[in-house]
C-alpha cells in the first residue's frame, strides 16, 4: 500500500513510456517486479499502450475520389495490400491466441514443459490452482521482459536491468524464471548479423540457466517478406510463434510483465 502511494499514476505512466532517468528506472524496475499490485497496474497501462498501437496500425485508406493522381493510387494500393496482409495476420493471430497448438508447447523451455502444458491445457483457468501444482512452483517469480526497441543505449540498459533482476533473485535464493520476448525492432537484439550484444547475451545465458530469449516468428517472417532478410538468430535463442500471443499466454499464467 505504501508503495502504491510512493508510485503515483503519473510515475507509473512515465515508467511505462520510458520517461524516467536510467537510475530511477532501475530502482522502479526491481520494486515493481516485486510488488504484485504495482505489477498489475504497470501491466494494465502497458496493455493500454499496446492496444492503442494495435488499433491504429492500419488506419483505413484515405478516400480516393477527391484528388485522383498517380501518387494517390499508389498509396491506396499500398493500403489495400497492407489491409489484406493484416486480415490474414489477424486470422492467424486470432486462431493462435485461442488455439494453443502442440507446436507451441514443444517450443516452451524444456525445464518447465510440464508446467506450460498444464497451464495451456487448462485453457482459461488460472494456473495457480493448488490442486494441481506444488506450492513452490506457484511462488516461483516469473518475469516476462518485452523488448520492442533497437536503441543501443536502451538495450544496454535493458540487459543491465535483466542482469540486476537475475542477480537479485539469485542472492535471494529464489528460483526465478525470466523470459525475454523479442519482436518488432527488438528482434535486432538477438539477430546474429545485427546484434551488438552477442557476447553479453551468451555470457548471460551461460551464467543464468533460468533466462531464456524468445524471438517472434511473425517478425522473422515479416522481415523476410518485406525486406528479404533471412534472419539468423544467436545460439540458444528459442523461437515462438507470436510475440503478442506469448505475452498474453504468459500473463494468463500469472507472469509479471515488463517492457523495455
Amino acid at each position, binding site marked *: 500500500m505504501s508503495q502504491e502511494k510512493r508510485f503515483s*499514476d*503519473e510515475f507509473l*505512466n*512515465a515508467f511505462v*513510456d520510458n*520517461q524516467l532517468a536510467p537510475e530511477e528506472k532501475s530502482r522502479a524496475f526491481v520494486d515493481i517486479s516485486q510488488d504484485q499490485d504495482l505489477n498489475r497496474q504497470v501491466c*494494465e*497501462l502497458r*496493455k*493500454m*499502450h499496446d*492496444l*492503442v*498501437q*494495435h*488499433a*491504429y496500425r492500419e*488506419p*483505413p*485508406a*484515405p*478516400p480516393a475520389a*477527391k*484528388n485522383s493522381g498517380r501518387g494517390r493510387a499508389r*498509396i491506396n494500393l499500398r493500403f489495400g495490400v497492407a489491409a489484406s496482409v493484416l*486480415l490474414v495476420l*489477424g*486470422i492467424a*493471430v*486470432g486462431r493462435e*491466441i*485461442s*488455439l494453443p497448438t502442440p507446436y507451441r508447447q514443444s517450443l516452451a523451455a524444456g525445464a518447465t514443459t510440464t508446467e506450460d502444458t498444464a497451464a495451456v491445457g487448462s*485453457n*482459461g483457468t488460472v494456473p495457480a490452482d493448488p490442486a494441481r501444482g506444488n506450492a513452490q512452483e506457484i511462488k516461483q517469480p516469473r518475469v516476462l521482459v518485452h523488448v520492442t526497441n533497437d536503441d543501443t543505449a536502451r538495450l544496454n540498459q535493458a540487459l543491465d536491468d535483466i542482469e540486476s533482476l537475475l542477480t537479485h533473485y539469485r542472492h535471494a535464493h529464489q528460483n526465478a524464471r525470466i523470459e525475454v520476448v523479442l519482436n518488432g525492432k527488438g528482434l535486432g537484439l538477438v539477430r546474429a548479423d545485427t546484434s551488438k550484444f552477442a557476447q553479453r547475451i551468451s555470457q548471460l545465458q551461460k551464467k543464468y540457466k533460468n533466462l531464456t530469449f524468445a524471438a517472434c516468428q511473425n517478425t522473422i517472417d515479416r522481415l523476410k517478406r518485406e525486406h528479404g532478410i533471412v534472419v539468423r538468430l544467436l545460439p540458444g535463442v528459442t523461437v515462438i510463434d507470436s510475440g503478442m500471443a506469448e505475452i498474453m499466454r504468459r500473463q*494468463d499464467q500469472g507472469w509479471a510483465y515488463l517492457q523495455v
Partner: protein
Amino acid sequence: MKTMDILDFFLRTREAQRALHQARSRLYRVAYAWCHSAALADDLVQETLTKALQKSSQLRDPKARDAWLFTILANCYRDHFRRSRDMEDIDELELSLEATPETESSRAQIITKVRAAIGRLPQGQRQVVTLVDLEGFSYIEVAQILDVPIGTVMSRLCRARNAMKAILLPEFQQNPEAAAPGIRRIK
C-alpha cells in the same frame, strides 16, 4: 562561400522534401486517430505537408523534424475546428464503424473497441495518448507539439489511460470465456 550555401540549401531542401513524403503515412495515422475520419485526416495531412514544404527551409535541426511536422499537424487540426466550429461538433466525429462480416474476427473487434474508447476521450487527452503511443514521442516533445505544459501532458495521459482501462479491461476479461465454447465444439 556562396556556392556552398546554395548547394547546402538545395541538399537540405531535397533531403527535407524526401523525408516529408516518407512521413505522410505516419501523419495520416495520427490524424486519423485524432478525428476518426479518413477524409478529414487526409485533408489535414495534405495541409500539413503543404505547409511543411513551404517552410522546409526553416527546419534547422533534422532531428527535430518529426516533432516539427506533428506541431504543424496539431496546428492544422486546431485551425480546422476553429474554422468550422459551427458546422462540426467534435463529438459527432465519434466512431461510426459498423459491424460487417469482416469485423467478426476477434482482432477486428478489439480494434473497433479500442478506437471507440479513444473516440470517447476528450480531444486533448486523445491527442496526447496517440502522440505518445503511436509515435513514441517523449513527454517534452508532446508538450512542445501541443503547446501545453508538460504537467498537462502527464495528467492528460494519466486520465486518458485510466478512462480507457475502465472501458476496455472489463471487455477483455470476458473474451477468453467467450472464445472457449467455440473451440470445444465438436459437431
